[in-house]
């Protein structure tokens, strides 16, 4: 199953993003982002398995989308998703 990662600028930002999504019924989990996805070192992300487009729109609306969005295919590799 495809997993989506919404990159966040900080742990606090990731937690708040996840809270916003949860409040809108979108299951989201705060997770450490793979090193290869950030050019600045350690980072946190919000991970979700579905309703990613809705999640991105929601965060955009609330001025909370601060990073790139990636999808991870079953093979494990990540690909940036244009938002």
């Amino acid at each position, binding site marked *: 199953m495809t997993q989506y990662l919404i990159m966040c600028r900080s742990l606090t930002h990731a937690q708040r993003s996840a809270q916003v999504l949860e409040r809108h019924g979108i299951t989201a989990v705060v997770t450490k982002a793979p090193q290869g996805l950030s050019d600045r070192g350690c*980072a946190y992300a919000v991970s979700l398995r579905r309703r990613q487009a809705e999640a991105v729109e929601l965060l955009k609306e609330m001025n909370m989308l601060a990073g790139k969005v990636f999808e991870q295919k079953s093979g494990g590799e990540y690909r940036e998703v244009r938002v």
Partner: protein
Amino acid sequence: MIYLDSAATSLLKPVTVEQAMRRAMRTMASPGRGGHAPAMLAAETVLNCRLAAAELFHVPEPEQVVFTMNATHALNIAVHSLVSEGTRVLISGFEHNSVTRALRAHGAEIRIAGRKLFDREDTLADFRRQIPDVDLVVCTHVSNVFGYILPIEQIAELCREHGTALVVDASQSAGVLPIDMQALGAAFIAMPGHKGLFGPQGTGLLLCGVPGSPLMHGGSGSESLLQSMPEYLPDRLEAGTHNVCGIAGLLAGLEYVREKGTEEILLHERRLLQKMRAELEDCPLQLYTGEEREQSGVLSLRCSAMDCELVAQRLAERGVCVRSGLHCAPTAHESAGTLDTGTVRLSFSPFLDPEQAGRAAAALREIAAAAS
């Protein structure tokens, strides 16, 4: 024991504070460092504490709530962020050394407004006169020595009118008086966690209206490749591992204050103050008191026949805990004319009852009578 030193640290706290700290110690790791369950549980507690503080003090975003070691640490970050050699800073006549020493260390040109104790009109007039000529105002909300409540809302309004940055020292008001970050429009508001918010020692908060400059540099768990602190809050001002146990305790304290309400807390403390005043009225002691709206639950007094340290010692022998001396606030004592003698300070809390206040007053009467 009768504890009348809550202006230094609230020793008597809600039972939930200790429970939360024990739980944190057993179950929580470092937030922002790992992705495992104990780290994420810690992160949840830290966020909840930011949210609780943001709600209580009307801070727009929880990211603007920064954890510090105490109010002094928070004030030092604020001063470090806004002051450099020659910055013209206006302070009140009732500031603590945590403000004045930090300002001097940064080379500020310090000016003082409002030196009349319990005279809010004079304080405001003096701020109004001097604000146009300064770059920054740093003002305590309540004097830690006398409980004098400064007209901070009006001072903030003057700062907004003149586009002057404002730093508020809320060390004695947080948890006792309403504080509205948005309404004040302050650059920073600094407060301890271990006084009116009932957290443990080693906790403090800096509410940030501007990003600020880091006083400490180090790990933040974010942007680790960069060799400078992140640009965004709270990471920018929080280097190193958080005091998670302390923050868990502070969260429980904040919840207590939210449930009880600052209005009820202030009312209780003022009742105790009035009782103490009434019982000491005909006693050979000099009490420093103002109108009810001008004074929080802090009372300074002096016994002309006995050194204030000796009065405190005699009280301690009777199980009454107070603080004597200059209270790290020589500026305030200079303003009140008590710099040479110091005062004995009694400070109240929601966990003190009138009967205890009465016994403390009786002990004071006995000591004063024996001295004169």
